[in-house]
């Protein structure tokens, strides 16, 4: 169970879909943590990935209008773990500009800041008709 993955196994993909509700975010982060553990990330790196994925899901729940579920796709690729958090909302969760009070603005900004700080690469792909992909990558240091 704890053997390092063989090279040919590194194309494996794990996908989960959770309801777009706060009570399911823990399942998403723990599932991704299990994948990261399987890929031999360190404990600190697993915690980074957990938090980044949770922040992405939280952003969807708080900002993506019309999305009833969130898809999380984990893929071992390019010497690391790529996680795609996809929502089905018509209002992209990467969109930061709307009326908020100072506290909300600070918190929203913190989530995005944390994702960018904890992961090695982060990108958004927004599709008005089919939602948003937030793709993040964590390099596996061996």
């Amino acid at each position, binding site marked *: 169970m704890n053997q390092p993955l063989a090279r040919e196994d590194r194309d494996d993909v794990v996908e989960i879909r959770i309801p777009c509700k*706060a009570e399911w975010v823990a399942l998403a982060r723990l599932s991704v943590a299990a994948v990261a553990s399987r890929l031999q990330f360190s404990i600190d790196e697993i915690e980074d990935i957990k*938090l980044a994925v*949770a922040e992405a899901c*939280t952003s969807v729940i*708080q900002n993506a209008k019309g999305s009833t579920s969130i898809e999380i796709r984990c893929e071992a690729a390019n010497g690391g773990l790529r996680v795609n958090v996809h929502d089905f909302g018509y209002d992209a969760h990467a969109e930061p500009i709307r009326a908020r009070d100072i506290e909300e603005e600070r918190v929203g900004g913190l989530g995005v800041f944390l994702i960018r700080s904890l992961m090695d690469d982060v990108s958004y792909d927004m599709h008005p008709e089919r939602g948003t992909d937030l793709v993040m990558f964590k390099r596996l240091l061996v």
Partner: protein
Amino acid sequence: MDIKVNVREAQGDCYVVDLGGEIDVYTSPKVKDAISELIDRGVYHLVINLEKVRYIDSTGLGVLIGGLKRVREHGGSVNLVCTNAQIRKIFDITGLVKIFGIFESEDAAMKALV
């Protein structure tokens, strides 16, 4: 997933909020309610003990920031007790170490309040 919140009176007009478990988008409202209730009662000097917190995200940080802002309006303060390296790291990278007093023990956090 769980969150434990315990509020207890300490010396002077200070209160300690003991938190345990995971603070995220689902559980942070419970933390916010506990802190808000204290502030609504006129308690403006708080120590929030995070020693038993295993996980915190931006919504948890937001609750702490919101509490700090409210007590500062009344000349109060919030000090944190944090011994978990991963959680301390979150405060470091977000720069929140500059606005919260963060201590290794409850005694130190309490002494620094006044």
